[in-house]
């Protein structure tokens, strides 16, 4: 909690004959973060991949090719294949699959090409059905030239100017006029010119076929039909192959990936002709586990030691360590930056503040229930990964929103308890006055309590920024020393504390037109503290840092968004409710006073209005709560820039050992 996992640097050395055994033990443990070796010396070079590496990657390549052709996708698999049996099958099955799949694929492509060819012919022959000629009749003349195509104009009149010695056939095809013109070759030039000037003329190529168009068409269509049947049967054969082998393909892919990873591992080690050295990191509490298992599997032939001195902190991989409830919030940390080894990991703090800010903004029992239900559905659908974490974050936030909904007395914008708004009594859903909890009368109506809520958000902001500065103070003490921390963060703490005290006294006085309360001890102490802070800041960071002081004010004011977003969400809900209630469901205070039709419109307005407000209610509070963490809070202490802990190993999903 609050700090990344403690890491220990481990060096493993042994003779080459044990390298394979060591690699597979380490891989199985999935524990050691290997530091890549890249400073070659005379004695130690980067290792070479183990023998099977190239064969394995060949297999992997062809397997992925097959998977791609068949469209096999990874999914949650119920049965796991044994990685002991897989290797004996892989060679044979991949060769078999490659032959079966690629030959069928070639055939499929060939058929598709032929279908395309035939379909082109069909579309060329179809217009010729309109003309009373056999297809042979278009070809094979020596002194006559033939033009065919679509045209909108009448050709005969224009042709008669050239010659009367021609023959013109025409007909209609799909509302366009088709023609075939036979004319002596001596008129070629004039006819060509004539046709070129016709803007509606589109040339029609006559296919090289024999016979009457209807007969040809029928034959072609039959051929296409046959080809399509063949295509379907090959596709279903491929589908069967896919069904039968997809489990194997996925499992083999995983197995081969693992084996390739193992075979290529020596590339990250330092090796001499006879020995190897692995340098890496392991979580300190699991060092003994690594030690004993490695010794056992190599019969004590491999030497393992921990190095405590001369450790470069920047090299230490970071694994965040938090209680399981705060674990999902590590997602928000990782999205921003991975912390450095000695920095505070703020996930546990975010676990409290993020849902709190979210809830103060959303604060509605109805919306809270829906968001909580949605979060549960997403969580059950995605068992791992970012979406799962996001769903859990949303769930916590929604539960708190329900609690704040009770405090505000809001259920989809309707009052839960009887409440007095602007001097008028509004009846709540429960029809009773709110209970008093610890001397505090519920509900706190958001529109009525704007002033006090505004003050509350400012207080929250001041406390949050104080916390951030305090963490920053601690980080600098650890990284440098107390003096630096006082200059860099202590100064800000003084400015904030002093400024808050002084402004708290100054504002009421200025608003009521009184002079500056220079006799007030709180005001004076605050002002002095702030000035000392500014002097320290200038000494530590230079005069330019004075420019940064106003950002403190804007940071604090920024927290008023907590109220603002909440008010807008409650306002939209109220508007939707008023609109649908007064206009449609109960016009003039009478139930269904506008008839059933208007009432239905009212229901639609109610539904769509709340749907939109709900979507805004997830997005707005979520983003703004996150922004308050990232911009106002993190900038006070967080640097980040650590490397994530990525142990050498693999989480098997489709295979088991």
């Amino acid at each position, binding site marked *: 909690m609050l700090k990344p996992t403690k890491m220990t640097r481990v060096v493993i050395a042994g003779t080459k004959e044990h390298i394979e055994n060591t690699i597979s033990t380490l891989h199985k443990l999935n524990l050691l973060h290997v530091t890549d070796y890249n400073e070659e010396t005379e004695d130690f070079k980067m290792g070479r991949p183990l023998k099977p590496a190239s064969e394995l990657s060949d297999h992997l390549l062809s397997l992925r090719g097959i998977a791609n052709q068949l469209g096999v996708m990874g999914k949650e698999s119920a049965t796991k294949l044994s990685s002991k049996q897989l290797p004996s099958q892989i060679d044979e099955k991949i060769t078999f699959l490659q032959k079966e799949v690629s030959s069928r694929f070639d055939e499929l492509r060939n058929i598709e090409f032929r279908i395309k060819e035939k379909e082109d012919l069909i579309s060329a022959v179809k217009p010729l059905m309109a003309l009373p000629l056999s297809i042979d009749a278009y070809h094979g003349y020596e002194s006559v030239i033939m033009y065919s195509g679509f045209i909108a104009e009448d050709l005969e009149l224009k042709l008669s100017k050239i010659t009367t010695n021609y023959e013109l056939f025409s007909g209609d095809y799909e509302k366009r006029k088709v023609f075939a013109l036979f004319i002596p070759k001596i008129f070629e030039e004039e006819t060509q010119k004539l046709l070129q000037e016709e803007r509606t003329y589109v040339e029609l190529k006559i296919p090289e076929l024999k016979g009457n168009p209807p007969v040809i068409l029928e034959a072609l269509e039959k051929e296409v039909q046959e080809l399509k049947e063949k295509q379907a049967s090959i596709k279903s054969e491929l589908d069967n192959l896919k069904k039968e082998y997809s489990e194997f393909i996925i499992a083999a892919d995983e197995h081969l990936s693992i084996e390739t990873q193992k075979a290529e591992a020596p590339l990250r080690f330092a090796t001499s002709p006879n020995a190897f050295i692995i340098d890496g990191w392991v979580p300190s509490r699991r060092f003994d586990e690594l030690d004993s298992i490695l010794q056992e599997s190599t019969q004590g032939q491999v030497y393992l030691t921990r190095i405590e001195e001369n450790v470069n902190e920047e090299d230490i991989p970071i694994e965040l360590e938090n209680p399981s409830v705060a674990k999902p919030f590590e997602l928000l940390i990782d*999205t921003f930056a991975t912390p450095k080894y000695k920095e505070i990991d703020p996930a546990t703090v975010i676990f409290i503040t993020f849902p709190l800010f979210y809830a103060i903004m959303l604060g509605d029992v109805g919306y809270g229930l829906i968001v909580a239900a949605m979060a549960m559905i997403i969580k059950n659908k995605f068992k791992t990964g970012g979406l799962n974490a996001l769903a859990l974050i949303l769930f916590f936030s929604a539960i708190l929103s329900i609690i704040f909904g009770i405090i505000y007395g809001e259920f989809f914008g309707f009052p839960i308890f009887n409440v007095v708004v602007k001097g008028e009594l509004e009846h709540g859903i429960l029809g009773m006055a709110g209970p008093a909890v610890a001397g505090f009368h519920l509900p706190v109506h958001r529109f009525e309590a704007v002033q006090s809520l505004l003050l509350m958000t400012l207080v929250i902001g001041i406390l949050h920024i104080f916390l951030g500065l305090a963490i920053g103070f601690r980080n600098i003490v650890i990284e440098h020393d107390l003096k630096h921390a006082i200059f860099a963060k202590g100064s800000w703490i003084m400015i904030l504390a002093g400024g808050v005290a002084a402004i708290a006294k100054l504002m009421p006085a200025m608003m009521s037109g009184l002079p500056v309360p220079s006799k007030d001890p709180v005001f004076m102490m605050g002002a002095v503290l702030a000035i000392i802070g500014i002097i320290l800041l200038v000494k530590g960071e230079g005069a330019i840092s004075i420019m940064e002081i106003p950002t403190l004010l*804007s940071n604090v*004011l*920024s927290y*008023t968004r907590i109220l*603002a977003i909440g008010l807008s969400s409650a306002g939209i809900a109220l508007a939707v409710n008023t609109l649908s209630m007064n206009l449609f469901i109960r016009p003039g205070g009478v139930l269904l006073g506008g008839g059933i039709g208007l009432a239905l419109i009212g229901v639609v307005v109610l539904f769509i209005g709340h749907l939109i407000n709900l979507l805004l209610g997830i997005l707005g509070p979520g983003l703004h709560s996150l922004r308050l963490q990232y*911009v106002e809070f993190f*900038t006070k202490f967080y640097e980040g820039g650590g490397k994530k802990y990525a142990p050498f190993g693999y989480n098997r999903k489709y295979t088991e050992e």
Partner: protein
Amino acid sequence: MDPTQAGMVAVGAGIAVGLAGIGAGMGEQAIGAAAVGAMAEDEKFFGKGLLMTVIPESIAIFGLVVALILLFVF
């Protein structure tokens, strides 16, 4: 407060929020575009990009605070 004055206060609050919002929007458009560009290169920029993008938003919040003070405190 007479009705004219109340009306002017409401108009003032509206102008404060509206102009502040426009200002914040103008600031954010350039940063947002740049942030999306940076994220297209490297997704790790999401956190920093979001941070940069929302910095001008404080201006909108100032407008909002002024409006709230006008409406509820003044």
